[in-house]
Each structure stands twice: as C-alpha cells, then as structure tokens.
C-alpha cells in the first residue's frame, strides 16, 4: 500500500501536470508559401544500422518520419525516440504504412553498431541511419535540418541540432515538422496559430498528411 502511494504520488501529478507534447508546425515554416511542399531531390549515399544502403529512393517507398539526433544526447533524443515509440504504437495497424528513421548527427561516434544497440530500447520499426559526414550533410540540407558540432575542449564536443521530426510524404516532399515537449497533450501550430489538441487528433492529422 505504501509502495502504491509512492508510485501514485510521483507519477500521477506528472501525467496530469505535464502539458505540451507535440508541436506540429505547418509547412509554411521559414517563409515558404503554404501548400508548397519541398521535394527532396538530392542524391545521397548512406547506410542503415543493419549495414544496408540507404539513399533517396528509400524516401519514395512510403511516407517517413525522420528524427536527427545522436546517442550522446542526454534527453531530447531519447525522449523523442520514446515519443516516436508511443506514436507508432498509437498508429496501430497503420504503423506499417510509414517508415521511421533516426538519422545520426554524430557519425563519428554513432556507427551502425552503436545505433543498433541504442535503438534496441525503442520501437523496432525505427531504423538508425549513419554514413559519411558529407553524405549526411546532403540529407540535413535537403530537409533544412541544422546540425553543428561544438567543441567543448579536451576532446569533448556536443552537437547543436534541430530537435523536431521531419514529416515526409511518399513523394519525398517535406510536408511538416513536429516537436515534443512532454508526453500527454499535443499542441499544433499551423497557419491559424496555436491550438491544443488530443493525441488522437495528432494521429488523425498525421494520417491525413501521410497516408
């Protein structure tokens, strides 16, 4: 009974108090005209965590959700991967209609092997992508993903990186970005401003955009 109360006292407020989970930003981001999706036209040559090739053709098979991060990231990246895991579960039978990628921002440390081990803690549909820095940069640039290595001295570094999901339709067009700040409610930002919506509505919107 005591244990149960400890659990409740700690977890319940967290679930109730936590706000803002997912920020969904329309595709008019960065002064682009609404409804003008940006097609990924660049050719790149990367590899997935299983040692298979990964290139632009893979983005035209199914719609994709991509997150760019690194395994030496203490909270934004694992939290985003957990959120993606939750989202995949919530998509139910539609989950297979979308591809999910975790693209490294840190190819120096995130080898295929490292990514595979790290991602084994999350939904198994999430595929880790790594490769040569120059090839990765082509993909970052094509999706307006900001990645900047920052030297912290004594051989240490961190990476400033865009922390939102890139939403790509099956024509390899970027149709939006989404962002999370927690795990319960969702916030959508579109041309009309900010609205709070339920998780179900986020799923509905994703399906509408992608499937």
């Amino acid at each position, binding site marked *: 009974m*005591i244990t*149960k*109360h*400890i659990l*409740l*006292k*700690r*977890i*319940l*407020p*967290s*679930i109730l*108090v*936590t706000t803002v989970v997912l920020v969904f*930003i329309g595709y008019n981001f960065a002064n682009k005209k609404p409804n003008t999706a940006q097609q990924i036209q660049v050719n790149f040559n990367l590899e997935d965590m299983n040692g298979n090739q990964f290139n632009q053709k893979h983005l035209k098979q199914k719609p994709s959700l991509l997150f760019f991060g690194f*395994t*030496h*990231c*203490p*909270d*934004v990246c*694992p*939290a985003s*991967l*957990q959120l993606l*895991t*939750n989202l995949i*579960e919530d998509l139910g039978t539609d989950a297979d209609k979308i591809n999910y990628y975790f693209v490294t921002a840190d190819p120096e440390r995130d080898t295929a092997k*490292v990514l595979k*081990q*790290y*991602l*084994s*803690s*999350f*939904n198994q549909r999430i595929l880790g992508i790594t490769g040569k820095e120059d090839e990765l940069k082509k993909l970052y640039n094509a999706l307006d993903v*900001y990645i900047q290595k*920052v030297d*912290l001295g004594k051989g*240490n570094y*961190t990476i*400033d*990186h*865009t*922390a*939102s999901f890139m939403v790509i339709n099956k024509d390899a067009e970027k149709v939006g*970005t989404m*962002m999370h*700040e*927690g*795990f319960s409610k969702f916030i959508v930002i579109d041309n009309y401003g900010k609205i709070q919506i339920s998780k179900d509505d986020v799923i509905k919107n994703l399906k509408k955009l992608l499937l």
Partner: protein
Amino acid sequence: MKKFFTIIIFILFSTSSFSSSHHSHGHKKNKEMDHDYKIGKIEIEKPYTFFTPNGAKVSAGYMKIENESNKQDVLQSVSNVSFAEKVEIHEMTMENQVMKMRPLKKGLVIKADTEVYLKPSGYHIMFIGLKEQISKGKKYKATLNFKNAGSVDIFFKAVGRNYHPDKNHHKHH
C-alpha cells in the same frame, strides 16, 4: 508501451482514492515519500534520472533546488559520482527548434529566495561516460557542492521517461 498504458489505467482507477489522501498530507515533508535533502538554507527536492537506452554513454540528472536564504548561492560542482567518468552542470536551450547544450562553467546560480528547476530541455546535471546503465529501482549517489551552503549527498532516483515531478507541489499546501 503496454506498460505505459497499464500505468495510466492503474492511475485512472486509483485517482479518487489518491486525491483525498493527497490533500490530507499537511506538509511536503512526508516521511514515506522522503526524497528531499537540506543543507543550510538550500533545499533539494526529488532528484531523478531517466533509465538509459541500451549502450547509452551519457545521462542527465534533474531536481528542484530552493534557496531559502536572502543571499544567492551557486551550485559549483557535483562530485562523488561512481557511475560516470565525468559530471558537469549543463544548460540546454531550444531556439527555432534547435537544441543547444552548454556546460555552465561558473556553476548554476540560485538567487536569494528563489527556486530553480533542473528539468528536461533545461538545466541538468550531465553524467558523461556512464560506467553502467541507469536502471529501474536503483538510486545513484552524488554530492552537490554549493558555494555558501556547503556540500550535501543526494540520491538520484531512476525513473522512466514518462515521469515528471509535480511542479505545483508547493501550491497544494
């Protein structure tokens, strides 16, 4: 995920009984919940750290630090950590969807009569070069070194990603 839903369902079913007992606790210093620490005029509430994904080399610790003194204090360093090679005090910011993380070389200032939250996407204690995975049911010791208040040993509780301490804790009382 199933576990996550199980927890939610469990909580939903238990909400009514919980709510009544929650407000009957007159003071935040509830012994059975004890996860708070005090040194001089500095109070540390609910230090926690997340379970790490497989093979993770880094992790972060969070807590609330309250300065009840009329002078500012500084968390200058964190020491005595056996589970990581290095510990730093970090700040994380989010600008235009870009996450940036930097060490606070001069430490974390806690102004007079204020409280500072160390929380995801904000200030955190950064554990670098993890020697073991942060796992369920364990507690992780560290010493917080304050400029004025001195040093205090604390334990970070390992929790899942869905955990969030109650930010409005004080307002209930």
